[in-house]
């Protein structure tokens, strides 16, 4: 048997259920490996002692009917975890310990999962490389000094480095799918409204969604079943019939129609990405799908739209970080002074940039020209997809316009950083489900991902297509544990 930490979630669950591995053994393996992997800087807060204790308790009284029996899991530090520090990668929440639990993580603990710790991320989920975190950069396990992607960079790195069997991230403009693509792992953003946003530190309310990040598609389907639920505490949570995603997972996608949107072929797209996409189309055909050319005419307007809507909502969501009720407070000579100093010292540069942009686009005189306009364009983008889905069942595109870049390479140019999200952002704007699966490598052997986008609430089709193609692609990460040397 290979090392416990190399097992997939499915394999780990099987072994635990068959009593071949105990929960405590599993927890120990992940903790040991994490202790040796500090260089990755995936963890912001370790919950190791508690995790080992709880895993022992599970072993003493196991319940193998649970979907995640005694499985140690680390989660993105954007999910509020009761009594465990939650920072959102920010100095302003550096000492914040919630007295409550997010619905998504509670679902995981209810099914037997045990918290390993909180994973690093871009500050307030704003970033595409995990370079904006107050707690430092995260290393991509694929190669030294490579970004793992973002904002769920700690999650994708921990996953790829086998520090956790599976994890959850959040995706507002691509923050699950892009890091999955950069680290050769699988990442799914479910339909908006599938997973509750209660207890998730909010970035952009109409775009944020929690989702599974895993080593393979099957694992994501297992975790999706656990985290996707209707929650009355979230007014945007949708009550729809959720599949048993893992048991209904099938490779048979014969006859499914997959659309190839021509507008995703952007100017200056690297050859490697074009080649990967073409290869993906062939794989899809091999799996029995029918390939159809489609048009999503407003694709090129998605990024500008996103960079109005997301900062606007963020500027308002982040107004609560004022030093009064929790988090950092800088001393000031009066209330306004206190606010200004607290937020200036507490927020990093990228967050400040986006809060300023958001405040500006909502400000008097500019609302119609920017925010209102962006919401109209968003309607057009959604309509593009609605139209396309009259003809096809899913859409296939590359996940990212490049492979992982070097740490520091893009951090001085916000716009070039934003272009990372070009393929992922339209999916959030339209509220659709989307998955990234590793599909190949570039000339440096860095992973490249393909994205499958589905109809609203049709995660099953997205997972099935991904599952089917995954088998044909047969991608394997080659992790050398370079950081341990």
């Amino acid at each position, binding site marked *: 048997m290979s090392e416990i930490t190399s097992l997939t979630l499915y394999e780990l669950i099987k072994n635990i259920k068959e009593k071949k591995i105990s929960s405590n053994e599993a927890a120990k393996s992940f903790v040991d490996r994490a202790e040796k992997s500090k260089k990755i800087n995936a963890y912001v807060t370790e919950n190791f002692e508690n995790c080992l204790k709880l895993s022992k308790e599970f072993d003493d009284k196991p319940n193998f009917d649970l979907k995640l029996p005694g499985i140690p899991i680390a989660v993105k530090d954007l999910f509020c975890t009761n009594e465990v520090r939650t920072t959102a990668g920010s100095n302003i929440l550096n000492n914040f310990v919630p007295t409550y639990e997010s619905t998504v993580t509670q679902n995981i603990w209810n099914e037997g999962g045990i918290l390993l710790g909180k994973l690093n991320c871009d500050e307030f989920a704003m970033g595409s490389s995990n370079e904006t975190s107050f707690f430092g950069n995260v290393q991509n396990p694929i190669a030294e000094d490579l970004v793992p992607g973002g904002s769920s960079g700690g999650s994708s790195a921990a996953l790829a480095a086998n520090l956790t069997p599976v994890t959850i991230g959040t995706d507002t403009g691509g923050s699950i799918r892009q890091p999955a693509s950069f680290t050769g792992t699988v990442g799914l953003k479910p339909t908006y409204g599938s997973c509750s946003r209660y207890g998730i530190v909010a970035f952009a*309310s109409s775009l944020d969604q929690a989702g599974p990040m895993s080593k393979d598609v099957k694992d994501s389907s297992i975790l999706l079943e656990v985290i996707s639920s209707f929650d009355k505490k979230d007014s945007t949570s949708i009550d729809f019939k959720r599949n048993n995603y893992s048991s209904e997972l099938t490779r048979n996608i014969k006859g499914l129609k997959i659309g190839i949107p021509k507008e995703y072929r952007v100017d200056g797209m690297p050859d490697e990405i074009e080649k990967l996409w073409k290869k993906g189309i062939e794989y899809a055909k091999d799996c029995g799908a029918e390939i159809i050319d489609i048009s999503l005419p407003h694709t090129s307007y998605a990024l500008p739209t996103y960079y109005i809507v997301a900062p606007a909502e963020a*500027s*308002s969501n982040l*107004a609560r970080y004022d030093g009064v*009720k929790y988090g950092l407070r800088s001393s000031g000579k009066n*209330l306004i002074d206190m606010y200004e100093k607290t937020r200036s010292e507490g927020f990093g540069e990228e967050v400040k940039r986006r809060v300023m942009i958001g405040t500006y686009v909502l400000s008097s005189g500019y*609302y119609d020209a920017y925010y209102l306009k962006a919401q109209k364009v968003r309607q057009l983008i959604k309509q593009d997809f609605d139209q396309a889905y009259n003809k096809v069942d899913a859409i296939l595109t590359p996940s990212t316009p490049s492979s992982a870049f070097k740490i520091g390479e893009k951090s001085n140019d916000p716009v070039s950083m934003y272009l990372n999200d070009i393929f992922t952002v339209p999916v959030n704007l339209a509220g659709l489900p989307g998955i990234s699966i590793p599909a190949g490598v570039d000339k440096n052997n860095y992973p490249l991902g393909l994205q499958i986008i589905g109809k609203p609430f049709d995660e099953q089709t997205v997972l099935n297509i991904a599952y089917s193609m995954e088998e044909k692609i047969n991608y394997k990460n080659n992790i050398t544990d370079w950081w341990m040397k």
Partner: protein
Amino acid sequence: MSKNNSEYLIERNDNVYEVVIGLEVHAQVTSNSKLFSSSSTKFGAEPNTQVSLVDAAFPGMLPVINEFCVKQAIKTGIGLRAKINNKSVFDRKNYFYADLPQGYQISQYKYPIVGEGNVILDMPEGQKQVGIERLHLEQDAGKSIHDIDPSNTLVDLNRSGVALMEIVSKPDLRSPDEVNAYIKKLRSIMRYLGTCDGNMQEGSLRADVNVSVRIKGSTDLGTRCEIKNVNSIKFMQMAIIYEANRQVDLIEEGQEIDQETRLFDTKKNETRSMRSKEDAHDYRYFPDPDLLPLEVTDEFIDKLKSEIPELPDDKKKRFIDEFKVSPYDATILVSDIDTAKYFEEVVAKMGKNRDMKLAVNWITGELFAVLNEKNIEIAQSPISAKNLAKLINLIKNGTISGKIAKTIFELMLDGDIDPQIIVEEKGLKQESDPKALEALIDKIINDNREKAIEYKQGKEKLFGFFVGQAMKASGGKANPQLINEILKKKL
């Protein structure tokens, strides 16, 4: 709608100015829990004991709307004869303040739940219709306490998130008297509906007052100033008078009026400008992405319409038509729902031989006097409607005289004693036996032969003397009508 004769006008030199007033009334919705969270709304709790994670705006917390608050707002809209909008949107009003934990208030900006309506005011010179612009739902803020700690402000979030209805009037008010009538009418309607208790001391009802002036006869609106957060009618009136005069003085001096927000200083009895808050006006409204548009069907609204009780204007009409109460009295009786209820109960308990005039007089006269003296509301009346009705019936059927009734009334105050019992115990039945009274009167006339002769010769005033004597001789128990009849006969 008749002319307004008691307008409030300001004369300076040769100019006559009128005051144009608009009110934005904030009424706390009567409900168990808050608008978007499930903590209690009870007044007077220990600080920060009615605060949930949502109220304190912890990371990841989300709003979920209270259906009852929506119903209360719609009912109020119906009471204001206003259009109920099937679709409305909640917007965020963004600004920073210590008692605003989210850094924004959830309110309604472009698409409120209730549209245009009106209320009718009963002014001395006739009825006046005041337009309502809109009504919307919003969150109340917490409380900042500045005077406990000399160097700090203390923040209590109990009130944070309580549902408010903001009722915006059109600028149709013209005097402090009209403002008084308007607030009272709004309050009355909401109390009838049970949508707001209108308790201004507890802060259930507050208003921002918009004041501008113009030359009487002009149709253009002058520059207005907003006086924020006035929490009593008296202060509203004082603020308006001060502000209107201030503006007129400025205009007379040839100066411009700055459009600004002001506060009313209750100690100095003047308005003053709030610290320049230009940026505070940029609230950067946008639809709250944590909430979807609110949609209510016509069925939902119709069901609420069917639950509306009889409102003051209709009740007044019924009192006039059915009970033949005078319009003046009817206005008083319907002005507060508890008074109307009391009156209706008295009417019901009086039974077949009811006497409306007596009922009206005893309630608006004797009873109101007692309530005023004790500074209590009619809901705490020491005499129940049932027993007051009994007292009135005793007068009506001649058992006691009106004068004796007043004595009995005083005795009833101490524990709501049944008047019948008092009459029996104290033997206060009035003497109505004609034979006995004739005998009594014969005796008096005999004892006062001279005066009787003087009366017959024309000194009509002496009639009162004989009435007085008769009452004295009977120990006050003689039936006054009979005394009068018999005296007339005999003299």
